[in-house]
């Protein structure tokens, strides 16, 4: 079947993709720069096509707790927001992780802290990958860098969420959310029936049927030893995810003397920087993170052995760089270049910084 080609914003592509991925419900609260997600969903009226519910909740706190309820029933549920709204959801995310509930969250991040600005930012890295809520938990974080990848992230995200019974965060920013590019629209996956949910997700609270133990979905256990066992089980799950779900892209790394490590929007901008460097005969490559957690620990270690220097480019004061440093060999030359508060770095200013600090010194 030939795929349908459309010109869409990243936010719209993500919204279309969740319908196509067979989502059961979207619960959200508007905030720039991702309001197009709910606008698009409302306009499409998926309840008339697939039966998917689209609901504007009274707040972000309500949205994330609606996810808890929906996910507990084995439904494919999601929300989207931008940085300040995602902060409000952190308590709920901790509960979802603790109760091992699958769900999808999209953050079209903006500059912070606080209300910050409505322009793009990448300063939510720590919050996303280190556990923005309380307790020992991790969530899978994937970072698309194009409108097509925004589309693809919906199905990938839901599949991972249910495979591991964990929240999955799609971390993008205002630039990729607002940008329009070509996108190929895939097939419509049907929503699961109640029977299919019962069969595929025996843990879900679908109504106690004869013969089986009662399913309990909770993050609370007052017996510390039993709760420690639950924590150990979670940590084992996270270890499995770290072993199996690392995703990255290498662009011209093969012959590279230097590498830029970046993700999302900045990884696109840096491809232009790479072109500028290569035009001058400097072998610069890009290591692009796609899964931010799990982090490509081994690959970054190998990269740090191979190249003469690594430049981390982020729209932040330097957050991802901490993970790059942690996993690199001792003595590796690693520096940060970034802009903050909603300012997007240009390919040329990144090149100028790189040339000054890596080539001329």
């Amino acid at each position: 079947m030939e795929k349908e080609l459309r010109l869409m914003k990243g936010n719209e592509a993500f919204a279309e993709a969740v319908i196509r991925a067979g989502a059961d419900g979207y619960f959200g609260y508007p905030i720039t720069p991702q309001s197009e997600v709910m606008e698009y969903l409302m306009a499409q009226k998926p309840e008339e096509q697939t039966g998917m519910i689209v609901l504007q909740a009274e707040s972000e706190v309500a949205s994330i707790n609606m996810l808890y309820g929906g996910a507990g029933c084995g439904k494919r549920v999601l929300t989207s927001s931008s940085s300040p709204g995602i902060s409000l959801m952190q308590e709920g995310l901790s509960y979802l992780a603790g109760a091992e509930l699958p769900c999808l969250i999209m953050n079209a991040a903006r500059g912070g802290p606080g209300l910050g600005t409505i322009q793009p930012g990448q300063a939510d890295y720590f919050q996303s990958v280190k556990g923005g809520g309380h307790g020992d938990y991790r969530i899978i974080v994937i970072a698309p860098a194009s409108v097509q990848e925004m589309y693809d992230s919906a199905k990938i995200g839901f599949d991972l969420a249910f495979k591991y019974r964990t929240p999955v965060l799609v971390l993008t920013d205002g630039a990729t959310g607002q940008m329009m590019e070509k996108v190929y629209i895939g097939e419509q996956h049907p929503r699961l029936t109640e029977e299919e949910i019962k069969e595929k997700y025996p843990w879900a609270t679908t109504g106690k049927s004869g013969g089986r133990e009662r399913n309990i979905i909770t993050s609370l256990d007052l017996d510390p030893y039993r709760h420690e066992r639950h924590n150990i089980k979670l940590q084992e799950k996270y270890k499995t995810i770290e072993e199996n779900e690392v995703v990255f892209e290498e662009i011209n790394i093969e012959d590279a003397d230097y590498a830029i490590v970046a993700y999302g929007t900045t990884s696109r901008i840096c491809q232009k920087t790479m072109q500028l460097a290569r035009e001058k005969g400097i072998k610069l490559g890009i290591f692009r993170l796609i899964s931010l957690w799990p982090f490509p620990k081994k690959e970054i270690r190998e990269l740090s052995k191979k190249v003469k220097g690594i430049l981390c480019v982020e729209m932040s004061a330097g957050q991802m760089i901490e993970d790059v440093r942690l996993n690199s060999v001792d003595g590796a030359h690693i520096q940060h270049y970034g802009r903050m508060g909603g300012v997007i770095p240009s390919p040329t200013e990144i090149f100028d910084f790189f040339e000054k600090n890596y080539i001329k010194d």
Partner: protein
Amino acid sequence: MTEEIIIAGFGGQGVLSMGKILAYSGIMQDQEVSWMPSYGPEMRGGTANVTVILSDERISSPILTHYDTAIILNQQSMDKFESSVKPGGILLYDPNGISHHPERTDINIYQVEANAEAAKLGLMKIFNMIVLGGYMKVKPVVKLENVIKGLKKSLPERYHHMIPDNERAITTGMGIVKQIREV
């Protein structure tokens, strides 16, 4: 071939939709495209701009600081973007409301009096299409037939009766664009 364009003016002049039509036209001729709007405070305060890239290759950065072509529709945008045209590139502008005309001597400068022409025709809504026609004349990266195809694809059917007016506006723009400076 890669063409990197900035279109800048006031909100309401059709800056973003002109960019969208260019992007659609690029798709119609099998190119890679990106459309990156200003969505921030400047949009809320009046000025709007969009970066459009059409390319035969995978597009790297959708965000740029230097452009092959700048299409300028107000003074604020002239002040901001005149310096961002690559040497040898094109600056196309509508002189309406421009008090400080471009001064660079290393770029090709064109004028299209789209505002005056649209007023004369009594069709202010097609102002941006006159500008687009001017651009298509001085830099024929998109073909008229692909623009029309793109319009058909991007507009809901209830607006298709307006496509002939848009086509006429493009042709008008092609006719009235004039060169001010050549490198």
